[in-house]
């Protein structure tokens, strides 16, 4: 067990190292000279040469990587060209809004996807199954940015059910200021008992949240169906059925518990995926999160910000995968020994 954990941790560290090498390589294949960009268009040749020395560009590449990483690890992620703020501070400020959105989307996705998967597995080959399979495949194939606009068009504009953009109504926020604790508005307003703001924040999160929910929904439906079908073939299920346990109980209690393992993996996978999806949809909803920041950085070719976002998301991705592997190893002894 211990040796498995140690090995898995080592691989995790190695992946993070690898991600940083790739990100660093990217900053060095920029078509333009970083020193040029640093000094601006009116710099003289001598000034650019001095900038080369200042930025450490005269040193060998591995040394440059070392300098870059040591700065990075000390929290110096560079200055964003757009916001003129330290990238790390920007990211810390924008991350909670995205986390809130992703968590909401995943909760909705799993709350719908898991029952759909169970229903599907309970009656394989029937219309419930076919419908939920089509649903599952569609969820994964939908361009999120398009879905976002359709939801805005139908639920936002035509039916006026939900606000089109924003995280909380300005007026509501002025009347009921949300005390920032975690930065997740829904959570913060809930624990401080600020129900006016809570209602408004929930109202605003529905459209972007539903957009993000489709992918976890599709994936969860699929995974639950597959692993339920597998579990339902086991002997202990036949025994339970033979001894007259009600079918609903067989499905939800006996089978589901053993079928949920893969869903955990899906959860980690979707988190990474949703994080990248926010790049596509947050600006549509004027949602002040990491994704909108990243999209802006991409459009304005803000390299320090692009690199910061890339490394942050990669770190999330690696750490989540690591976490899932470790949890599964604890839960399922078969994994450790293989």
């Amino acid at each position, binding site marked *: 067990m211990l040796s498995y954990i140690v090995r898995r941790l080592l691989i995790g560290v190695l*992946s993070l190292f690898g991600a940083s090498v*790739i990100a660093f390589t990217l900053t060095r294949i920029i*078509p333009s000279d970083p020193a040029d960009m640093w000094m601006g268009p009116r710099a003289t040749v001598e000034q650019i040469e001095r900038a080369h020395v200042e930025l450490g560009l005269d040193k060998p590449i591995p040394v440059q990587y070392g300098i870059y990483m040591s700065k990075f690890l000390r929290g110096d992620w560079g200055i964003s060209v757009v916001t003129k703020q330290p990238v790390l501070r920007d990211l810390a400020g924008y991350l909670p809004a995205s986390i809130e959105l992703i968590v909401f989307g995943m909760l909705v996705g799993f709350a719908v996807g898991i029952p759909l998967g169970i229903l599907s597995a309970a009656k394989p080959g029937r219309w419930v199954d076919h419908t939920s399979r089509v649903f599952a495949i569609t969820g994964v*194939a939908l361009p999120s940015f398009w879905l976002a606009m*359709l939801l805005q068009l139908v639920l936002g504009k035509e039916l006026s059910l939900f606000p089109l953009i924003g995280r909380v109504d300005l007026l509501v926020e002025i009347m009921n200021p949300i005390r920032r604790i975690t930065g997740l508005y829904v959570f913060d307003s809930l624990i401080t008992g600020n129900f006016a703001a809570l209602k408004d924040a929930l109202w605003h999160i529905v459209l972007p949240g539903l957009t993000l929910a489709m992918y976890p929904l599709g994936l969860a439906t699929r995974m639950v169906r*597959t692993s339920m079908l597998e579990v339902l073939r086991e002997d202990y299920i036949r025994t339970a059925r033979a001894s007259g346990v009600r079918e609903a109980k067989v499905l939800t209690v006996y089978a589901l518990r053993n079928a949920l393992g893969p869903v955990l993996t899906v959860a980690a996978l979707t988190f990474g995926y949703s994080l990248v999806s926010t790049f596509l949809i947050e600006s549509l909803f004027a949602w002040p999160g990491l994704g909108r920041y990243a999209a802006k950085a991409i459009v304005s*070719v803000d390299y320090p910000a*692009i690199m910061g976002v*890339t490394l942050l998301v990669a770190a999330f*991705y690696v750490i989540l995968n690591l976490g899932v592997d470790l949890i599964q190893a604890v839960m399922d002894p078969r994994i450790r020994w293989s």
Partner: protein
Amino acid sequence: MWKQLRDAARRAKRNPLTATGMSLVTLFLLIAILAPWIAPYPRDTLAVHPDEVFSPPSMKNWFGTDELGRDIFSRVVFGTRISLRIGTIVVVLALAIGIPLGLIAGTFGGLLDEILMRVTDMFLSFPPLLLAMAISATLGASLENAMIAIAIAWWPWYARLIRSEALSIRERDYVEAARAAGATWGRLLFRHVLPNSLGPVIVQASMDFGSVILTSASLSFLGLGAQPPTPEWGLMINIGRHYFLTHWWIITFPGLAILITVLSFNITGDGLQEILDPKAKRG
């Protein structure tokens, strides 16, 4: 071989979903090939009609017209060509990197294998879309760069797949026999290991068409991929974002085109896998 194909065809018939997917893929290919004859206004990929901007869908313009008065139906039709081109180039490029590397790693093993696999690990520590975004943002916004970026994000999957195939094939008796008979490394690689390990990779690659098209549409939506006036679906939606609340058709049809294309490739891929490997669980 013949019998296998016949069995596969029979299984495909029994699965209506797969059959639908396959027909849609065929339709997509037909539209891409016949685009200039299908599109009612083939010149609307470039032409501008200032007096016909934002006409809603009608008999004249089935999908309406966009902010420059161009026929959206014609542009969506031509978009199939671009998507097909993107899908093909990216997959071929990724295979061109992945197959040799994976093959070498799997056949020769040892230190080389170890190094190559650690390199793929590095690449796989990013969500593919993120890596593609970061690369095409650094390379500069253009469709060519976006395709290169997606291929760079994609090849490690193929390298891994072909490596594991090669690993199992080099242990087979006939490879052993060839080696004992004094076959050169080149002969072993190209006559024995490569042809026998290609199958699953090709299936996987054809399945990936859908994801590649979705990824490139996403890049174009961010402004990283195709540039105006290319009739690329993601780009059409990107431009339409400024107008869609008052002119719904501008984004609706290009988006539907993406959805249906990706969906039909994914369904076909699922079905193919099931058909070619009946032992695999129906999932």
